[in-house]
């Protein structure tokens, strides 16, 4: 593959830069797509970000993109820029496993709306990325197909559940990726891999075709290396979809404009959430966070402290609502029509129920079974009010806390995750410790408000990336991009360039195309 005549290697460029190069005729989508496919071939053996790579499909889409561009009719700004998609979104003709054995071999007959919009906008789909089984986890270790490794340190987790999408972007295997975020599955992987992750407002991006873990919390969003790239991708996938009744029927805010609005934050009120920080947060994480807040002040923002006392109950409420919905969603995996089918041993003529039982026993991993059991229990007659009912009340209280906080501040900030990437296996036997990693991200899902994680540097003690989370009121996603882009620019001025560069990664040093 011939290198471009000017500029850096294709895989090092941001999506916005690639889009410019394509528009300027300096490269082609086939070249770009092939460069990323080559990069995947070179490093994914170590990272294991992908469960399925669709080289043929991606190149066909790239050729179509180049033809459109040659005809002077590109489908969108990002036409021809490839993308990776989390394996929880249905892709017509491409396997979709959700990281589970129970869906092994299933090829959906339809596209999720997000996927359809990517195709409509001309983005070649490189493949499907690894994830915790049915998005249940914070480390991608619960994938039935083996864990993904953090490109910064292959012994560490890439976060989860969308560790595959974050690692793919961090490892420069894809310029763009789609993740989904139920309790932090876009933002926490973003934080621990030094990438940008956005959870849009609930209802801002269609969930049609997103295999649900918890329908009232799930939201698909962009995973990228820069805030501008995230905004560009957000514009492609966002907006009303009649197939998703919960999608918001109003225009998407001007997220790309917000990402290009510069570093002047004069007049912006930034609320630091007292409950999300301090004790329980790794000192190096807290330090980078505090410095970033200081930068916002220098940029003209007014910083206030806000209190959200109900956040103390967020984790408990989340672990009632999420498993309740999940237990019902996962009931359909019964071996009757698709996916795995296991015949019980030692049963002569097994009944439908016998086959369901044997299949679900063999097809679901422990974490999934744990949540099905929790959810089934929480919804049971006699317990419903105490568990599911109380959890819904907590959601209301959390929403009120947010409403009050957004009276005092235009955006709220916190560390995205309390720690940097932990070691593979470290928390596998301690579900509660694993769950605690989402303590700062979960409140946004419970209230439906949007959030972004942007890189805030690396922690002094381990040299691993730290994320800063910005939260905004529902439907004000543009504020995430304004603050995120300003902070990104200010930090890069300080660092003298982006945090995430190839030389920082623990991967093969061979010069990429």
């Amino acid at each position: 593959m011939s290198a471009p005549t000017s500029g850096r290697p294709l895989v090092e460029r941001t999506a916005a830069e690639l889009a410019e190069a394509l528009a300027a005729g300096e490269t082609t989508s086939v070249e770009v797509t092939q460069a990323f496919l080559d990069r995947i071939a070179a490093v994914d053996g170590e990272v294991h970000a992908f469960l399925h790579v669709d080289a043929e499909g991606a190149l066909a889409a790239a050729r179509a993109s180049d033809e459109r561009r040659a005809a002077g009719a590109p489908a969108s700004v990002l036409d021809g820029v490839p993308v990776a998609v989390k394996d929880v979104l249905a892709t017509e003709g491409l396997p979709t496993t959700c990281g589970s054995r129970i869906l092994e071999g299933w090829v959906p007959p339809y596209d999720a709306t997000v996927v359809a919009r990517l195709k409509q906008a001309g983005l070649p789909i490189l493949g499907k990325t690894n994830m915790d089984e049915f998005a249940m986890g914070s480390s991608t270790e619960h994938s039935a197909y083996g864990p993904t490794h953090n490109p910064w340190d292959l012994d560490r987790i890439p976060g989860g559940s969308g560790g595959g999408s974050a690692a793919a972007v961090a490892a420069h295997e894809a310029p763009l990726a789609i993740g989904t975020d139920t309790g932090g599955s876009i933002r926490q992987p973003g934080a621990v891999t030094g990438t940008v992750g956005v959870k849009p407002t609930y209802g801002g991006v269609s969930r049609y075709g997103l295999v649900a873990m918890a329908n009232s919390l799930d939201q698909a969003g962009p995973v990228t290396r820069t805030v501008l790239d995230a905004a560009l991708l957000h514009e492609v996938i966002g907006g009303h979809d009649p197939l998703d009744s919960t999608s918001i029927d109003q225009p998407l805010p001007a997220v790309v404009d917000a990402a290009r609005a510069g570093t002047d934050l004069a007049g912006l009120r930034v609320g630091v959430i007292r409950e999300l920080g301090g004790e329980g947060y790794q000192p190096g994480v807290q330090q980078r966070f505090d410095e970033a807040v200081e930068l916002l002040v220098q940029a003209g923002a007014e910083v206030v402290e806000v209190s959200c006392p109900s956040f103390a109950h967020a984790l408990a409420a989340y672990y009632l609502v999420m498993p309740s919905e999940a237990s019902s969603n996962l009931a359909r995996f019964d071996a009757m029509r698709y996916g795995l089918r296991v015949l019980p041993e030692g049963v002569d003529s097994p009944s439908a129920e016998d086959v369901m039982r044997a299949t679900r026993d063999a097809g679901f991993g422990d974490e999934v079974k744990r949540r099905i059991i929790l959810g089934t229990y929480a919804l049971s007659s006699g317990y419903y009010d105490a568990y599911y009912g109380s959890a819904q009340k907590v959601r209301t209280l959390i929403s009120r806390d947010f409403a009050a906080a957004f009276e005092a501040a235009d955006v709220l900030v916190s560390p995205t995750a309390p720690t940097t990437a932990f070691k593979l296996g470290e928390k596998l036997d301690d579900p509660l410790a694993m769950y605690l990693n989402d303590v700062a991200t979960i409140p946004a899902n419970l209230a439906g408000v949007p959030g972004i994680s942007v890189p805030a540097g690396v922690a002094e003690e381990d040299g691993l990336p730290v994320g800063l989370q910005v939260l905004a009121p529902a439907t004000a996603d543009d504020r995430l991009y304004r603050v995120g882009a300003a902070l990104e620019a200010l930090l890069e001025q300080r660092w003298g360039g982006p945090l995430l560069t190839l030389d920082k990664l623990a991967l093969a040093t061979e010069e990429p195309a």
Partner: protein
Amino acid sequence: MSTPTTELVDFDEALASYDPAMGLEVHVELNTATKMFCGCPATFGGEPNTQTCPTCLGLPGSMPAVNATAVESAIRIGLALNCEIAEWCRFARKNYFYPDMPKNFQTSQYDEPIAFDGWTDVEVVTEDGTETFRVEIERAHMEEDTGKSLHVGGATGRIHGAEYSLVDYNRAGIPLIEIVTRPIVGAGDKAPAVARAYVAQLRDLIVGLGVSEARMDQGNLRADVNLSLSPAGSGTLGTRTETKNVNSFRSVERAARYEVSRQAAILRAGGTITQETRHWHEDTGITTSGREKSDAEDYRYFPEPDLVPVAPSREWVEQLRATLPEPPRARRARLQQEWGFSDLEMRDTVGAGAMGLVEETVAHGASPQSARKWWLSELARRANEQGTDLASLAIAPADVARIQALVDEGRINDKLARQVFDGVLAGEGTPDEVVASRGLAVVSDEGALGEAVDRAIEANPDVAAKIRDGKVAAAGALIGAVMKEMRGQADAARVRELVLERLS
């Protein structure tokens, strides 16, 4: 499950000792163009699994979206049953595993039904005329149908013992309205008749609203009969059984009577009633035990998170209220008076599902009695032969009215009219076209008729002599002979006149 099913106590005897309480659950399949939560056609008769999509198949990632027409139909049914209409209500998931349930939960409504707290008055015939019972409606809610299983092999046709099962998901997601009554108590020995009258009236109402085909034989309208007995005068409620999918008005009454007799036998023998679902057997007229069902069966209901609440505005509800047809009882009373039908005639007309058809036929100019005659005799017979109902016959009320007009004009007689019905039903065209193409006009040529009469008299001298002796009744034989010669195409009244003229 050791419930004896063969011992029965005579119905009247049972009612001397026990008070029945009934609850009726009726599922109405709506006739919307598309399914409850997706855009698939909701029509019947497609090849299995051709009217499906990711949503009604419950494929991973698919999502429901509410059919607004189904909501409108639900509200109209609720209003017609004098219900309150919820200002805000949600769908809920009813979680249970079954092979023909695509998601292993049914999207239904639980504690927030779209319509609630209604009533409808039904009439039953008693020794002294009719008696009115008020049936209170607890709720009417929206839900989706399941797939349809066909269990192959095995003796029972049920899933247990079957070799394999086939599932047709064309039915999955068809909109259903479930209408639930409060316990009907105090009807005594009229309870089974009240049940029948209620279901029949509900069907009329649904048909009048135009929201369902409401064909019980096709399962568009399915009734479950809950029944319990308690010691006479105790004022308590006993343990109930739920007899499923009773598929005709007559069966509703029979099933209720059977359960009264069966339960009374058990109670009288000191036994207890098992709370269970039971299956009605049309052929033998009995119910048999289905599955045991306790109130504690846990469906783990919770609000469907993929759907937003349904919040019909009061303006919309009032607009829909304004479109309601006349209530069935009022309409029936008005029509009976307008038509001058006896109670029996009216009951037969309603029972045959012909009230609306007679009404339209009358509107096209036929007399009420002639309209009733054709629909309840000639056309009812043909519907029976075809295994269909009157409304499904390939003939319009306007055609029936035109055929009667042709009779009234003397252009055809009743016998020829039957041939015209044949022609119209066979798709040969309008009544006038059938008369023309089949050459069915009565012979009105006096000369030809007179000659035929003369020939008949000549051929039957004995009969002619009797008539001359004043035995006018004997004229029938001569009229018959003339009609036969004219192949039916003569006005019998005129033939009679000609015969009597010649022999008086």
